[in-house]
């Protein structure tokens, strides 16, 4: 009876974890599709201004115009179309910057944590120095030097955020490195790099996956922050952060210009972090 209950509890946890995984993956999949197909599915041209149609409310509010589902901003641009086109920038930054940051940070962390010695000393000191910089100021400074643009944002995120991966992966690799199975592999004749890749990496991978998805969410936020302070890509192209910045100035007259990009941003970042947790539950051999 007790056993049956325990098994039931486990399957409950699994079902809930599964739901979380599917909801977040579903939202992100829809977003990816929308971003890819933006020119074809956006109802309006995201850049077309029409001052006669400024600050139209969303479709279900009194005074809305048909075709402008989420209303228009103060220049008469369609909010829904701009969110759809903004997804392109957000997802490009999330995927490219997140992945490169992960590769750089996790590799350095793994080397520091497992190889130890001078490798660890150099990488750990670098991490210490990096962490002493305030990240927002650092990124603004970097963009100022590199010049605005998608490429600069990606570089800035990689340069600033690699320590997130390096720190955690280093600690994890150190823990794993002390396990007896590593000693056995060494006795059997595996070299240091071979041991690192075959024995340590698979055990650090679930952590790396969680960090990667978190980082993708963070990358979306960083892009939004930089757009908010007008340091992102050119101001013509719609970005969620840029929309939020513009919406802020007219929030009392037209709340929808601020609120809809904000909700989209929120759901996206949340989905990334939940996707990571869900994947970890699914692929960690001990939890599975």
């Amino acid at each position: 009876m007790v056993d049956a209950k325990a098994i039931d509890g486990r399957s409950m946890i699994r079902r809930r974890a599964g739901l979380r995984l599917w909801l977040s993956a579903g939202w992100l999949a829809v977003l990816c599709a929308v971003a890819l197909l933006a020119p074809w599915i956006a109802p309006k041209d995201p850049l077309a201004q029409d001052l006669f149609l400024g600050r139209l409310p969303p479709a279900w509010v009194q005074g809305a115009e048909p075709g402008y589902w989420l209303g228009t901003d103060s220049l008469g641009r369609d909010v829904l179309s701009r969110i759809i086109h903004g997804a392109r920038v957000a997802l490009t930054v999330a995927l490219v910057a997140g992945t490169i940051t992960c590769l750089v940070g996790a590799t350095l962390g793994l080397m520091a944590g497992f190889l130890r010695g001078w490798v660890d000393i150099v990488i750990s000191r670098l991490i210490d120095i990096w962490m002493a910089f305030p990240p927002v100021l650092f990124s603004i400074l970097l963009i100022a030097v590199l010049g605005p643009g998608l490429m600069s944002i990606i570089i800035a995120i990689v340069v600033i955020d690699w320590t997130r991966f390096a720190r955690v992966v280093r600690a994890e690799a150190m823990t794993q490195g002390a396990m007896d199975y590593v000693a056995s592999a060494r006795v059997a004749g595996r070299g240091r790099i071979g041991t690192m890749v075959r024995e340590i990496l698979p055990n650090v991978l679930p952590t790396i996956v969680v960090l990667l998805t978190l980082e993708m969410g963070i990358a979306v936020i960083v892009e939004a922050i930089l757009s908010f302070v007008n340091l992102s890509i050119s101001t013509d192209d719609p970005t969620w952060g840029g929309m939020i910045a513009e919406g802020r100035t007219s929030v009392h007259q037209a709340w929808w210009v601020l609120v809809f990009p904000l909700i989209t941003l929120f759901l996206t970042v949340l989905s990334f972090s939940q996707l990571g947790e869900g994947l970890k539950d699914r692929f960690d051999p001990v939890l599975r």
Partner: protein
Amino acid sequence: MSFLSIRNLSVRLKKGPPLLRRVSLDVAAGEVRGLVGESGAGKSMIGKAVLGILPPSVEVTEGEILLDGIDLLTLPQAQRRRRIGALAALIPQDPLTALNPSHRIGPQITDRLVDILGWTRADADARARNLLAEVQIADPDRVLRSYPHELSGGMRQRILIASAFAAEPKLIVADEPTTALDVTVQKQILKLIAGMQARHGTALLFVTHDLGVVSKVCQKLSVLYAGMVVEDTSVADFYAAPRHAYSAALLAATPKYTDPSAGLTPVPEVVIATVQAEVAAFDRGQAHG
């Protein structure tokens, strides 16, 4: 000619106190030598030195470790690793951390046979199945497909034993292989190790703090105190008449299961003082020499 011969091996913490003080011992081919001593006496350190897995915080200051006649300590790193991999293996202490949680059992046994020793995949798979049968695992095919966390501690220790014998090493270092197991499983595992050792004719360096275990498995015995060998003898002689006062006290301190009312006899203070004086005298000699 002994298969493993350790001569005057001294190991210390880098810029710190000595951990092994000119340890010498021999293990002949097919022989089982027990290595006993209290915690911190350096018994595991000897096993680690032989297998080339000393932690980076310690260094070898003198001595030789002759494995099949060649000093491991003078070999270049890569050659030493190959030699150890081909001739020796480890049965680790803790079955819970000694198997990689991310890999299935099968590949954990076979991958190194294939990758490092150049076996064919089919040979290695067949070998793994035979070995699991030999360590009395009922359903080898299912176990080979399992992850470590799906198996019990005793089962995992059997797998580790099988894995240690996989490449037919000439020497196995067993580092307290029964310490992490409960008493009933301990007995089975000991029997298993002794049986495998006899069948395969493998030399065994058996690290333990349990003298009861030594009498069941070993032929020779080294007693360690503070990194010094205080007695090197055959097990029969040891139980008949230990030569060193510390060995005698250690033997007297072993609980007798036949007489539970006897209580515990600690090692007397005077014996500890004697053996500590010997260690101090050794260190003074080192300082002057």
